[in-house]
């Protein structure tokens, strides 16, 4: 049990460091608000190596903590909508046959952006924001793909380490 807690703590820390790195070095896609979403590497890997409820907990805590540290209450709302929606979709996609981590990650990235767009529309009460949907779809697919590539490279190493320290 204590080992599981330690693992979760490490993953939360890692996700927060990724969030911070992203604040420091924003990868600019030329579109305001589009980020690569490095912290999603942790969430995606988590989906493959630990239990889903632990991933959920890591995601929620990471969003609240990094929102408090680097953002504000609104950024927590945006991240929470995107993060929760993408986590649910990624968990479902993972159960579907025929998709590897890349596909799961692409779906997660796209849904993440859709979630944030919905919150943005609710916040400013203007549904014309839907004009940003095409850009966000493409951006989500591209960033999701990149995160998928990175994560599928990391997972084997994580699994090896976890086998050494069995729970």
């Amino acid at each position: 049990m204590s080992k599981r807690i330690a693992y979760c703590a490490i993953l939360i820390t890692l996700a927060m460091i990724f969030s911070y790195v992203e604040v420091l070095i924003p990868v600019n896609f030329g579109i305001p608000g589009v980020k690569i979403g490095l912290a999603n590497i942790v969430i995606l890997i988590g989906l493959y190596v630990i239990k889903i409820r632990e991933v959920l907990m890591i995601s929620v805590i990471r969003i609240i903590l990094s929102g408090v540290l680097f953002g504000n209450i609104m950024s927590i709302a945006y991240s929470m909508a995107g993060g929760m929606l993408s986590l649910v979709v990624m968990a479902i996609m993972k159960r579907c046959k025929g998709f590897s981590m890349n596909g799961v990650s692409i779906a997660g990235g796209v849904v993440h952006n859709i979630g944030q767009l919905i919150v943005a529309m609710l916040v400013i009460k203007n549904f014309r924001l839907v004009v940003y949907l095409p850009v966000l779809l493409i951006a989500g697919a591209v960033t999701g793909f990149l995160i998928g590539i990175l994560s599928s490279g990391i997972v084997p190493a994580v699994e090896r380490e976890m086998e050494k320290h069995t729970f």
Partner: protein
Amino acid sequence: MKKKDIILGLTIITVGLILMLMMKVYHHSEGNRIVIEVNGKKYGTYSLDENQEINVDTEYGHNVICIEAGKAYMKEADCPDGYCMRQGKISKKNQTIVCLPHKLVVEVNGEQHRTSKASDNENSASDIVPDAVVK
């Protein structure tokens, strides 16, 4: 990387590109005025024909929208991210500039008829006075 991953990725990108193309067509015609909305409520309507600077001060913050040579852009904003100032100039129908932290949307509108209030004010309007302020 499996076949389904590629199909999924390409489908999403294709849908995005098609929607983009449709919006390009949709955005084709030039508009003649901008509508500023704050928190879902109309703040004012301003003609794109005259050069002007519009100060928008609300409970959410301060924005300056500038109209120059028939195009509108966000000149100043005290929002934390400043994304609104990087959204460029707009002049085509349905194009928007959004300042999320201030719940502000600037939208180009092309309707010919104007509200009576707008035309009333227009006669006496100097360069910096808005056509209409509806709160």
